[in-house]
Structure formats: C-alpha cells, structure tokens
C-alpha cells in the first residue's frame, strides 16, 4: 500500500507491506535509528515517536497508519534544548531509552510550558529507564524548562 506522510519535515511517499509495524518501517527502511525496540508491546516507551504532536508507541502502530500524518523523531528536533538538558543533568547512561524520554518530554512541553514534578512524572510514566533511576531525568526536564525560560527572557 502506498502511503504519504511527513517525517521530520520531509515528505515521504513509499509502498509498504500492510503487516509492517511503523517501528520497523521507520527504523529499518528509512534509517531512523533513534527509535528503539525495547519490549515491542507498549510497556517500555523506547519506540516513542510524535505523531501529529502526540507521543505514541511505534511498535503498536502499523506503517500504513502513518499515511497523512506528521511524524517527529529526535532526528527532526531542530531545537536541541531538551537533549542538552538531558546531557547536562546526567540523565543518560546507556542511552537506549533516551530518545523515547526526549520525545515524551517534547510532547509534555508542547502542551505545558511549566510542568510540576507530578506532571513531569505522569508525562514520563510510560518510559522506562534501567540505568539512571528517574531522578536525573526529572531534573533534566526541569532544566530544559529553565533553559527555555532563560531563552525567552533574552528575546
């Protein structure tokens, strides 16, 4: 089936088999390597992508469902504030879960410019990390908020 969608701002037209998951299509066929397969059943969040502004699991989505959508992955983030905050706060270790966390953070900050600790925890509850232990991840989100606020002060 031929699908047409936007990936990180670029128009893509491709013929995809109907059984293929969005995860496999984006990663294997289009080389979007930030998307990881962790559990493959919507538990871990390592495959999280933004579809029309909402974070979803690419492992629980068919590639054909991308038709007509706008997809954003870490590769497409022009503004590196969230990534920089994760690095600075030490919120990364092995890095496998990080793209998922960054995309979920992006989804949160798009809707809520100044989230509370509770709101951060809820927004990231679908992403699992086995290395850092979440505190630094929460700090990284708060740092990203601070960085954005500083940026807007200058303007």
């Amino acid at each position: 089936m031929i699908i047409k969608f936007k990936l990180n701002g670029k128009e893509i037209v491709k013929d995809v088999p109907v059984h293929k998951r969005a995860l496999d299509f984006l990663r294997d066929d289009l080389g979007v390597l930030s998307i990881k397969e962790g559990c493959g059943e919507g538990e871990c969040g390592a495959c999280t992508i933004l579809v029309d502004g909402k974070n979803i699991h690419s492992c629980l989505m068919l590639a054909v469902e991308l038709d007509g959508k706008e997809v954003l992955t870490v590769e497409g983030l022009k503004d590196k504030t969230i990534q920089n905050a994760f690095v600075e706060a030490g919120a990364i270790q092995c890095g496998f879960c990080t793209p998922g966390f960054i995309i979920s953070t992006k989804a949160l900050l798009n809707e809520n410019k100044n989230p509370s600790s509770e709101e951060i925890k809820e927004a990231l509850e679908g992403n699992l990390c086995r290395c850092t232990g979440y505190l630094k991840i929460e700090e990284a989100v708060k740092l990203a908020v601070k960085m954005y606020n500083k940026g807007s002060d200058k303007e």
Partner: protein
Amino acid sequence: MIKNYFRPKTIDELSELKLKTKGYLFSGGTDLFVKLRAGTIDTDTVIDTKYLNSKKIEITGNKLFIPINATYSELRMFIKQNNVNNMLENIVKTIGSPMIRNRGTPVGNISNASPAGDFVLASYLFNAQVIIEPTSRKLPVKNFIKGPGKIDLRENEFVYGIELEILNDYKFYFEKVGRRNAMIISIASLGLLLKEKDNKIKDIRIAFGSVAPYILRDENLEKSIIGETINEELFKHLAIEYQKLSLPITDVRATKEYRKSLVHNLVIKAYNNLFEKVVKE
C-alpha cells in the same frame, strides 16, 4: 500475519467487511497488536476503524456520548473542558501511559470485555448504554458483556459508541491496586459513587474490577442501604457482603485469597477516605 488491511468510511461498509472477512477491528491497536504479537489472536485481516465518519464526543441531555475512535486523551480533555463527570478523570488517568491513552479507546476497552478493564468498571458505575450499529441496538453494558472477552454482538455488528449518565454532586472514590502506578493491569480495583443527604445514603454505586469473571456490581445490595446512615458500621457490613459476592481467581498478578482481602479492605479504605477526617494509611 496481516495480509489485508481495510479502511471503511461508512457504517455499512464496516459492517459488510466485518461480516465478509471475519477480520479484527482496531482503532488504537494497543490491545490487538499486543495479542497478535503474543499469538493469542491469529488473523490475516484487520479493519482500521479510524477512517469511519463518526460522531465526536458530545453531551446530549444528561448523557455523555463517547464514540468509536475517541481516545482516552480526548475524553480526558473533553471532561476537563466541559466540566462533566470529572470523577472519570481519576480512572482514565490510571489507564496505561500517555502513549497508550493517546491511542487506546474506551470503546475498545468495552469491546474487549476484560473483567480487569478499567473503563469497563467506569461504564458499570455510570450505567453505560452500549450503542451497536448497523442495527442501532442499545443495551446496558451489564447485558452487553456476557463473560470475560464475551460480548453480545452479531457477526455484522460493531460497537459504535457508549453513553454514560452524567452525574452531579456525587462523592467518588477509585483505587486500583497493582505493582506500580503506570501500565498496570489491576490486581483488584474499586470504584464508588455516593450521593448523600443529611448524612444518609441517597444513591450509591459500587463496582469492583478483577475480583470475579465480570465487573462486580450488585444493585440489590446497593438498594438495600438507601436511606441508611453513613457510618463505619455500614461500610463494615458492605465490606463483608462484597467479600462474599466476590469470586476471584489466582493468576500471575495475585492469589485469590489476597484479592478477597482487598475487596474487604478497599471498601473500608473508601469509607475512611471519603468520611473520616484523619486517614490512616
């Protein structure tokens, strides 16, 4: 493996496809794709319901209509913006994770008919009516769900939406017991709605998830305490009665004995949270 993928646009088209292909319907896929992967469902045909030209979430009279394809996130936004059945948010926010809530749907949860389904529990509490097309049948959720995964649906039919009562001035308590906060399937859950007048019960609805092969709600027991004074004694009585009514099983999540204790203790805890000034954890 999926070989055929369909995108029907009308009710009739969807119904004909379902009848002809015996394919599985999906909107969010948060349940179907997990089962396909695990091999508990084997089909070569899936029908994507998201292209169906359907209604939006809406309030009609004293009913809240939730159509096919409306996600948990959309429902949550709607109840916040319209200040309607706010109690539902306490249930909806415990379902899955943001990613699941962005794709999963209440109609999907009802159609799966799991006794652990959190929205199934909600639908029992709000006396939901299930709206079925293309036959335009409408029936109470308790009659629609026949058993775990078993529903009253003919081969050409599908669930088009659900209608919940809109309830005002109810006290509400919901608790889901599980091993962590996100992504859990409950070991046991309790939802309680209570309307009081002069410290007496005017209306009460109590439903339990995961403690029987169905959502446990006993309308006779509820009716029997209308007009009673709200106190600890009454809730102790309820705790014992519901414990008797529960029929839990032992599974990977917990033993039946533990679930029986939970039924009792959740009722007491609900009372303490709603009516006792000092809550002991």
